[in-house]
């Protein structure tokens, strides 16, 4: 049993090399342990004081988000909430205000739940995860990170230090939409993200769709077949593809048939919202509140 408070990334890496598990906000790890999901690991290294992992920086390729940036920070960030709007949509839906102030982006990704809300938007934006250990640093395309529910391809001693997202080309943007039974403290029954790039004539130049909670890991599809089509056709087709690709389960939250149907609805709405943003429209974060159900009365 050990509990280390890391003050530098190197201290954290050393602790992890010695077998400690990273704990950031603890909103998955500690809450899960209290609910009997998995016992708290015997050796922990607290990384929450690593200020170097708390910043958002623009680079020549796009943006780098430190692993400890919280959902609240993302939701409020001027650049992320506009140019990377799908990510902000996802973060803005996480839990409650207190969950969003404590929970981190790194924790959300590394927890690898198929219901995580930032996974699908990051995947459609082709984010890369930077992992670091005492042995060195490497970058992994985010889709290659998740291998099964709760499992990643990261080695146990690898710390996620940053999430890198390529800058969106002009006339492109993203959106993330989630089925919600209530407005806070939800967990995705299904969700869908879309990244849309538009040609000058308003037709699709690129379309990628990511699906939450309908398969063991986040599903992502590059719908190259939709290039050149109208947004409305592409949205319909994205819905169809999503329903076909989904392998949902039946559980206490929803039946498989309802999940399959609604993931199509979410995918279509995500494409439509992303396309509106790509065309220059501002839709408030999270898009869930601004479109369809959940709109302000």
């Amino acid at each position, binding site marked *: 049993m050990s509990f280390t408070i890391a003050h530098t990334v190197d201290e954290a890496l050393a602790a992890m090399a010695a077998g400690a598990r990273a704990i950031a906000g603890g909103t998955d790890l500690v809450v899960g342990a209290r609910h009997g999901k998995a016992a708290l690991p015997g050796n922990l290294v607290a990384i929450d004081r690593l200020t170097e992992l708390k910043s958002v920086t623009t680079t020549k390729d796009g943006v780098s988000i430190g692993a400890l940036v919280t959902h609240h920070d993302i939701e409020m960030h001027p650049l992320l909430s506009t140019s990377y709007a799908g990510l902000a949509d996802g973060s803005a839906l996480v839990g409650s205000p207190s969950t969003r102030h404590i929970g981190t982006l790194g924790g959300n990704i590394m927890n690898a739940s198929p219901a995580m809300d930032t996974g699908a938007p990051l995947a459609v934006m082709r984010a890369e995860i930077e992992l670091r250990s005492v042995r060195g640093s490497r970058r992994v395309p985010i889709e290659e990170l998740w291998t099964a529910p709760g499992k990643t391809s990261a080695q146990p001693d690898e710390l996620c230090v940053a999430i890198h997202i390529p800058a969106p080309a002009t006339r492109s943007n993203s959106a993330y939409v989630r089925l919600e039974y209530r*407005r*806070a403290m939800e*967990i995705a029954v299904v969700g869908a993200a879309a990244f849309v790039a538009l040609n000058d004539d308003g037709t699709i130049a690129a379309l990628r769709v990511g699906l939450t909670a309908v398969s063991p890991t986040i599903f992502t599809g590059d719908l190259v077949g939709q290039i050149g089509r109208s947004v409305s056709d592409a949205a319909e087709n994205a819905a169809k593809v999503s329903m076909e690709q989904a392998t949902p389960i039946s559980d206490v939250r929803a039946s498989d048939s*309802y999940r399959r149907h*609604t993931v199509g609805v979410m995918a279509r709405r995500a494409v439509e919202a992303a396309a509106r943003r790509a065309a220059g429209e501002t839709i408030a974060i999270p898009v869930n509140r601004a479109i369809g*159900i959940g709109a302000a009365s």
Partner: protein
Amino acid sequence: MTPSATAQATTRRFVRADGPDKVTGSGRYTADLSLTGTLVAKFRYAQVSHARITKLDVSAARAMPGVFAVITDADVPDVRFGPMVQDRRLFARDVVRFEGEIVAAVAAVDAETAQRAVDAIVVEYSPLPIVNDVESALSPDSPLVHEDWADYGAPGVMVRNRNDASYASIAKGDVDKALAEADFVVRSHYESDGCHAAPIEPRAVVAQWEGNKVTIWTSTQVPFDARAGVCETLELPSSRVRIIVPHLGGGFGGKCGFHYEAHVAALARIAKRPVKLVFSRREEFLAPDKRREGIVYDFETGVKADGTIIARKARLVIDNGAYTADAGFFSQLAAMHALGPYKIPNVLSEAHLAYTNHQPSGSVRAPTAPQTCWALESHTDEVANKLGMDPVAFRKLNAVDSNVEGPSGQTYGEIGVQQCIDAATAAAGYGKPLADDEAIGVAIGWWPSFASASGAYIKIDGDGSGQIITGAQECGTGAVMTLRQLAADELGMQPEDFELVYQDTSAAPYDMGATGSQTLFNNGRAVIAAAGQIADQLRELAANKLEAAAADIVLADGMAHVAGSPDRGVAIAKLAATAANGELLIGHGSGPPPPAAKAVGNTCVGDIGMTAWRAPQFSCHAVRVRLDRETGVVRVLRVSTAHDSGTIINHTGAQGQVEGGVMMGIGQALTEGTKYDDQARQRNAALLEYKLQTCADAPPIDVQFVEIYTPDAGPRGAKSLAEAPNVATAAAIGNAIAKLVGSPVRRLPMTAERVWETINAGNAS
């Protein structure tokens, strides 16, 4: 007091006494208590829904270091108990009947040791057939939940038969003949799932023995009932049992009845140490014999072409769960709600309370009412649609009114149901154009007021401040908080001049507790009577000082003065100082409960006294919703309410009650429902899967009161209020959804998926 005399007193707003403690976190709840040497209690639950115990061996658990007591049925008196049907024991004997039934209890030095000891208890079962469905529970070939049901003690009026724990009917006129004569007959079937009280504070109990007396701190809504339960099951006189309730973190009925006080007291006696039990959220879902009952409904209503209702038949089967708890009267209460506040000449309403292997049902806020109102009011809209009548006009035509006979033969005095319909629909903008996919649903509901014996003391100290020592229990409604206002008004003082002393059964006189919306209704009477005694004393003292007649002394604004001469006065504090050196200012009050109401002309079987309601309350809720047609997700946009609860004594508190009741109703309507697996175990016993509404979901809520001074009711012409606001919300939401979908969603809660299925069924046909 006359209605006009109350006007000035009732407009005062003040901060409730427990508010700052609760908001700042300085308030202390049962789980916060620590006594020297306290042990931790944990229970071993059945975990299976119906089985015979073939082996129960606690020896290994008892032998573990750090374990001070392990007890089972063998270690407590041989008592079968239950408020109506005596069908329950503290610990399972021979048979377990639901997953949350307690088989054994452990007290150990810490939670981990207690849990290890619980796990070390060996229990073996041989399975018995599980009754998982209310309707089949009543079939003659259903397995019995209680083989020995016929031997159980129960009041003579209860009609029981095998799994039917309580049958009740309300019959009036000739319903079959009237149905045959009707121009239209509409039949409907509905089902509602069970749901939970879900208070924010999971329950906690601490027990400590000193000599042969036990003090129990417990998160109960009904301290005197809890004491009675301990006395009955542990065979103790009430003089040896003292119940204290620190701040209570909500109850909503779930903390009514007698729960684990006796288990913890029995552990503490054997362990010879104080013992503390604190429930986890999961236990709070699974174990208490209190959750809102699921019901299956069949309605048949006959109407004339002009829209008048001439006949109604209703048949309800209520899920009692494995033990009857306080649900024995639910059959007749539900039978009343199935008739609703309508003037119907010919009725037959029958309700059965069916044993199943589910968690027992019990009084959760307005038991049987919100779900039965939902079913009946959905049916009412179906009838109106059949007639081609506007549902609000149909209700106005058929609803009861002042001095009109209701469905069970009771004639009401002055009541405000018609005004409630007008006020709520006007606030909602009913009839005005709406946005796409929006609709307004309307429902009316009713709920009785309950009379009970109730007592309080008041004393005024030498410095002129006082204490109200009351038997009433505050469960969050603010009813106890409002007692200060009543005392202040009687004595011409301020609410802030009084401290409330509650809850200690050894200090205060009896009160029924925070149940049946009865606190202010009955304890208010007690406090006014107690304050009246002190007022008389003060008038005597002032009369001596001011050389006037006692009858001419007026108590107002902290002064006693001669009527008509505000200058000839003396401060009440001064009189109190005088009294402190002479005859002390002490008042005690109770007062006779208001008389019972009468029903005439009905013939009932299994009459549990619920066919006539004392000071019935009426309400109308009009709810605007928006439907997402593609997903079935419904959002409530605005809830407009109007309530007739008689005179409103504390407007701030009353508004809070309505808002809270509405939020609970929205949850019941859309997201809150227990799901069972095929082994009758709950599938969603957690707050993520059992979805309460959150602050973020709260819509704007309009609160209006139709204030009618009601004689033979509570203080100053008040009726009750705590439960009533929970009655009509789900029903109004259901009717709004039905307008958008084209047919009602026939199962409660109307989850997004169920709404979607109903839309699809409509599209398919």
